């Protein structure tokens, strides 16, 4: 098939048809000029080539993803987490994770469908599945369905975007034979599912955009809503989905700008209709979906589990069998309580030791009795809580209690502790009251020293009065409870709050933490909890009572709390992992991630992209950006290098793919958390699409003859020239060859000798195992 020259120089839109859409042009021009004659000359094979190509992609994708999916029969890498979470869903036990729930619930759904009961907890990489009776093969097969769908979806997106059969096929084959996507694609991991929804969103949006000359029609609404639903799903898999939302958001802004332009003849009313319908479908729908998935998540996980500890006590009380609920009692005046710091977990401790007169930096102390934070609970950790009112009645009450007298429930209830009560804390072991005063604390000169004051020293008694504030309490009648209330102790006179930090005192402080008065009493780090009342045990009737009156928390409250924790813990994921990497290194593929090893058989799974494929994609991206700048710069001087149809396609579709790559990649540079190579996988798909796009921009001419109307429609022609076919064949052949070469470390199915391992060590950073 040869290039039809006359096509090339045709100016667009010379036809009488005014507002002709570019894609319409693509097709109409060709059907007009190439006409029936050429159509008749095209064989059936060529006309159905798109369908054949699509089916080929499906088959190849199936083979690459499902090849020996039962190998290895052990826990691999993050299956540790996601397998475990699936088990928790099936056991309905509460867990906490930084990712939104959809993908994990889908994995669990697969498990549920195949009848897996969640008995296995995937504790360590390398644990055996067979001996533990886990239907892992079915689980993997289920997740791999999403992996299987990626190459066909890429084909569909490309074809819908106006690329030729051959360019679309190129993109799909590159993705099919990428080692990282394959390695990731056949394990119980989230990324497949996330990328699936990401591509589905893009596909829907492209379909929607093509309906722009039939606004508010059935098709238009279908694809708009479908975009919104898919966006809701992608962001419910991983928060990285926000990048996909940003991609569609920016595209929509450009689209709205087009509609707003008065020369298009739209009225403002029409503009607002467009605006509101998009806002509804692309903002409201995803938000509702996101919330719904959380609602399902919380509805499934009703039992207490490993995630309890992350949450507030109120949240924990909602879970069935929560150990917290079983240890939550009302605190009464006169009780001996142990107070524990929320963040660092130390108990407020006091001992007869005194602060040294002079510290190393020459500052002077009060030489008062030490009040410190101790890791262990001892006799020194108990404080008697005393009221500031009704002192006489209180003294009687205490005396009667000590005498062992039976005290009625009603009377006991008079002595409960409320939010904002003024209290004193008397150290049980040494009998003095906790005090703070205007002396600089030992290690933090801006904060006030904590010490104790003898009971008979009335001159400074005002220093010993504390206002007890319960975190989150709305009225003064809120009761202080052990375990479930978090409190602040704010000194009534000085306004400072009891605070501690992980700094250890020197030898004289027994290595305890420093406790002092912080001038900003609202800080999170000033929260404490009462963990225990000395001698208090739960009674059987209390257990029953508790089960009845678990105070309700609305879904929205739970959601807000959970979401806040997710963001907080996501940002706090900064512990150094040996295989973490920096975003800059990703496109160059300088290092992979060791997923799994089997020393006995010298097998391993090492996550590594297809090096050649990734480097070629980088070149394509570079070529695209350079070409774009050149094209535009010439355009500034009204020189058209490629003809307006190609030019518009480069700008619009090429620009969209390039921006999609950019937005799925660059935000990572601003993240402080530990990052991994697999965070680049979504971007890598767009990079592969860029290769195919450049291939089309450079080699496929005239455009009109080759572009597809839809992925399932009939093609008019297949190959512009044999040299183009050669380029295609070479690119695919190299990709496949590299894929096969690295396949042993992607599948982990074959034993490698040291020599074989070393031959795959293309870059010094590929720290494969068994090099010797």
């Amino acid at each position: 098939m040869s290039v039809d020259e006359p096509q090339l120089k045709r100016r667009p839109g010379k036809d009488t048809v005014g507002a002709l859409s570019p894609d319409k042009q693509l097709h109409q021009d060709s059907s007009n000029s190439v006409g029936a004659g050429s159509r008749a000359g095209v064989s059936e094979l060529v006309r159905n080539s798109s369908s054949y190509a699509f089916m080929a992609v499906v088959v190849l994708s199936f083979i690459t993803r499902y090849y020996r999916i039962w190998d290895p029969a052990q826990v691999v890498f993050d299956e540790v987490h996601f397998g475990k979470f699936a088990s928790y869903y099936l056991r309905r036990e509460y867990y906490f994770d930084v990712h939104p729930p959809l993908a994990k619930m889908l994995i669990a759904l697969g498990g549920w469908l195949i009848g897996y009961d969640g008995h296995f907890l995937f504790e360590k990489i390398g644990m055996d599945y067979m001996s533990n009776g886990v239907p892992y093969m079915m689980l993997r097969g289920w997740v791999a369905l999403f992996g299987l769908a990626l190459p066909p979806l890429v084909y569909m997106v490309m074809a819908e975007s106006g690329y030729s059969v051959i360019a679309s096929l190129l993109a799909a084959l590159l993705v099919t034979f990428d080692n990282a996507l394959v390695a990731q694609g056949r394990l119980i991991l989230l990324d497949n599912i996330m990328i699936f929804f990401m591509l589905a969103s893009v596909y829907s949006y492209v379909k929607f955009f093509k309906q722009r000359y039939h606004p508010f029609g059935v098709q238009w609404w279908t694809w708009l809503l479908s975009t919104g639903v898919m966006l809701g799903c992608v962001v419910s898999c991983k928060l990285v989905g926000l990048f996909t939302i940003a991609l569609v958001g920016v595209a929509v802004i450009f689209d709205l700008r087009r509609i707003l332009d008065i020369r298009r003849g739209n009225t403002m009313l029409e503009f607002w209709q467009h605006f509101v319908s998009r806002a509804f479908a692309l903002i409201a729908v995803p938000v509702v979906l996101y919330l719904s998935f959380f609602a399902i998540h919380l509805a499934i996980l009703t039992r207490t589990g490993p995630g309890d500890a992350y949450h507030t006590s109120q949240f924990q009380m909602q879970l069935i069998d929560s150990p917290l609920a079983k240890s939550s009692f009302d605190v009464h005046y006169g009780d001996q309580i142990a107070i524990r710091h929320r963040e660092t977990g130390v108990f407020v401790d006091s001992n007869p030791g005194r602060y040294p007169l002079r510290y190393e930096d020459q500052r002077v102390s009060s030489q008062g009795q030490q009040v410190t934070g101790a890791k262990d609970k001892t006799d020194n950790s108990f404080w008697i809580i005393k009221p500031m009112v009704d002192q006489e009645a209180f003294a009687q009450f205490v005396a009667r209690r000590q005498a062992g007298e039976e005290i009625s429930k009603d009377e006991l209830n008079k002595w409960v502790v409320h939010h904002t009560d003024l209290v004193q804390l008397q150290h049980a072991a040494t009998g003095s009251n906790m005090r703070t005063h205007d002396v600089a604390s030992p290690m933090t000169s801006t904060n006030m020293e904590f010490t104790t004051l003898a009971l008979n020293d009335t001159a400074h008694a005002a220093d010993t009065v504390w206002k007890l504030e319960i975190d989150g309490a709305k009225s003064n009648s809120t009761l202080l409870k052990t375990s479930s209330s978090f409190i602040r102790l704010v000194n009534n006179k000085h306004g400072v709050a009891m605070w501690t930090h992980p700094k250890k005192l020197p030898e004289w402080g027994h290595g305890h933490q420093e406790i002092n008065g912080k001038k900003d009493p609202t800080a999170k780090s000033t929260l404490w909890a009462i963990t225990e009342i000395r001698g208090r045990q739960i009674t059987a009737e209390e257990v029953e009572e508790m089960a009845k009156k678990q105070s309700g928390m609305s879904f929205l409250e739970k959601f807000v709390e959970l979401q806040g924790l997710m963001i907080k813990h996501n940002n706090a994921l900064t512990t150094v992992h040996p295989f973490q990497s920096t975003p800059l290194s990703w496109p160059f593929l300088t290092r992979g991630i060791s997923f799994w090893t089997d020393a006995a058989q010298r097998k391993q799974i090492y996550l590594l992209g297809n090096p050649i494929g990734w480097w070629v994609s980088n070149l394509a991206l570079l070529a695209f950006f350079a070409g774009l700048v050149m094209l535009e710069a010439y355009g500034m001087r009204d020189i058209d290098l490629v003809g307006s149809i190609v030019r518009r396609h480069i700008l619009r579709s090429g620009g969209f793919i390039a921006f999609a790559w950019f937005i799925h990649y660059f935000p990572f540079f601003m993240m402080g958390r530990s990052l991994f190579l697999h965070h680049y996988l979504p971007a890598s798909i767009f990079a592969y699409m860029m290769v195919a796009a450049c291939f089309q921009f450079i080699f496929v001419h005239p455009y009109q003859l080759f572009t597809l109307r839809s992925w399932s429609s009939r093609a008019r022609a297949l190959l512009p020239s044999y040299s183009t076919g050669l380029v295609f064949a070479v690119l695919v052949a190299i990709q496949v060859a590299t894929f096969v070469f690295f396949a042993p470390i992607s599948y982990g199915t074959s034993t490698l000798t040291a020599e074989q391992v070393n031959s795959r060590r293309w870059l010094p950073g590929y720290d494969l195992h068994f090099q010797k």
Partner: protein
Amino acid sequence: MTTEMADTTAEGKAQQQQKQKQLPSKDISSKAIVPTSFFHAKWTCTSTDAVLLAGVLLVAVIVRCWRLSVPNQVVFDEVHFGKFAGKYINGTYFYDLHPPLAKMMFAAAGRLAGYDGVFDFKSIGLDYAAAGVPYVGMRVLPAVLGALTVPATFAAARACGYGIDTALLASLLVCFENGLVTQSRLILLDSPLVFFTVLTLTAWSMFWTKQGRPFTGEWWLWLLATGVMMGCAASSKWVGLFLFPAIGLSTVGDLWDKIADRSISPTRWLAHFMARAVGLLAVPFAVYVFWFQVHFMLLHTTGEATSMMTPEFQTTLRGGLNVSTDRDVFYGSEIRIRSSNANSGYLHSHTHNWQHDKGSGQQQITIYGHADENNLWIVEPAFNTTVDSSQGPVKVPTGTKLRLRHKTTGKFLHSHDKRPALTSDDQKFELSGYGFPGFAGDTNDDFKLEILSGDKNQVGSSDHVQAIYSRFRLFHPNLQCSVYNSRKKLPKWAFGQIEANCMRNCLPRMSTWHVEYAHYPNATTEEVAKAQYRPLSMWAKIWEYNLLMAESNESLTGDHPFAARPQHWAWLRRGTAYWGGRGHFVYQLGNPLIWWTSLAAVVLFGLVRVVLFLLDKRQIAASMGGQRRVYLSSAGFFVLAWACHYVPFFLMGRELFIHHYFPALWMAILVLAFTLDMLTARLPHVVRLSVYVVVAAAVLHVFHTFSYIT
């Protein structure tokens, strides 16, 4: 066909009727009305301008120098920068996380005022008068620099095309900004930084007034002045680097527009491009390097911070490290092993045992900074192997298993499946000293020495271990881990030394070691090859110093009581307490009226931009009192500069203070003045002037109210 990026069909329609050769992606309407880059004003300094410049300078000098001697004690960070000035005068090496220019200026001022570098500025509140420090002389420098920013503001506003009234208002706003005043009365780096930042942008505005006559003398003058000032700003504090995106973006936009200008030939365009590349990239870079070179020339003698640098760096300092050792390492040699990439010291052991719960209780292995007997190790062949040294000493090749015997205690360096002291990470293992008389050892004593890189000028240094030249790792084959410097301090029972452990899959950065001292006891010949550190070149020194600066900036995460996050700066939630004493105190707080209104002006600009965009799309004309072009281009540039100096701080994890906002504040003040001009453009002259007077009076009043703590 995919999406957006350009609107097409409508243009298609419009263009087909209007222009034959118009390209489809061009948005003509917005192009014509909204200039993408700076406004081309033409301003030459008249005599009126000159008089006013002198006038505002005088006012500013009075405001900034008023009772400069109070307080006569060390205030806030004068602790650091006063001390550093002393170090420059004495020539002793020090390290600081800021570039050197501003500190050197203080040193020069101190030198001129007669400071001898003896007083050490040890803590806030120390008395200057008693110590006889010429602190007033040193404070004159920031005060004068601060005062000069005021006439510079006037010039910048004039160069942007504004009238005398607006320029005067802008300079008065800068003059009576309490925060800027406080900052420029003390020995702090921000006054030079703000000064250079302001001068950069003033020169840049002046450069734009010469746009009509490119490549003339004045054009070059202002271009190069911009570059030099930008280099100086970056050499004062890295915050100055934010000027580069601000100026860079406006340059790129301008160059892009110039492509469309058919009166400029491609060669001429290239000349424009090259001139800017030289003036705005090469020149600042040269300035930055130059000041560092001066810095290293002044600090020629070793000082307390020397040990933070690499050994190669230390050898360049007078009285610094001077190592000369036997080059070759043999079986039986005594060696001292240094961690190559962190300057924490030598692999060390001593007769004390591990005391952590999960450990083995065997002898400690640590990293210790000073060379002593306990750092000496003897190279021995691997367990159950021998090396025949009868034919003369045998060199140690790369990739061989060997054992390291600790010289003073006789134990072998050993690792096993126990957790190290400071982490329970299952990738890390404890290192210990193990063995006792009569025990042959075991295979856990074996380490494989793998040379990672040799010195290319030293033949054989990548095949056989050579002191200093060979960089290697010590790999434990049984556990598949490498000896690793965790850079964390051990508790008191290990004397606060640095932890060493054995880590799996670790990167070379903290697991690279080299031999710094080697000696073969039974040497038969006198003549042995020696090895020395190669002193670093100037470039390498600057590079190393800058890397260290970057690292310390990142790790600056203290809990200073007055640290403030950027979201609180722009609306001045709180200030910083600088100094307090006997009923007087210095509290660094801006003029709230200026902070709030300038922020409002920036926000207003954003709104105006959006509204104009929408109106243009609907082809509704808005001329904004004829000020549209001037306002959009000049305020647009300064809003861009403001964003460049503000937004990046949100991404920084390090400890931040409100004084980091000052450069951005100056830009916001200019936007405020421009906004007032735009808002009053349609009013009668008298009304407009009275609005200005009221604003100035209000600012002055607030300034006066807060001046007691300023």
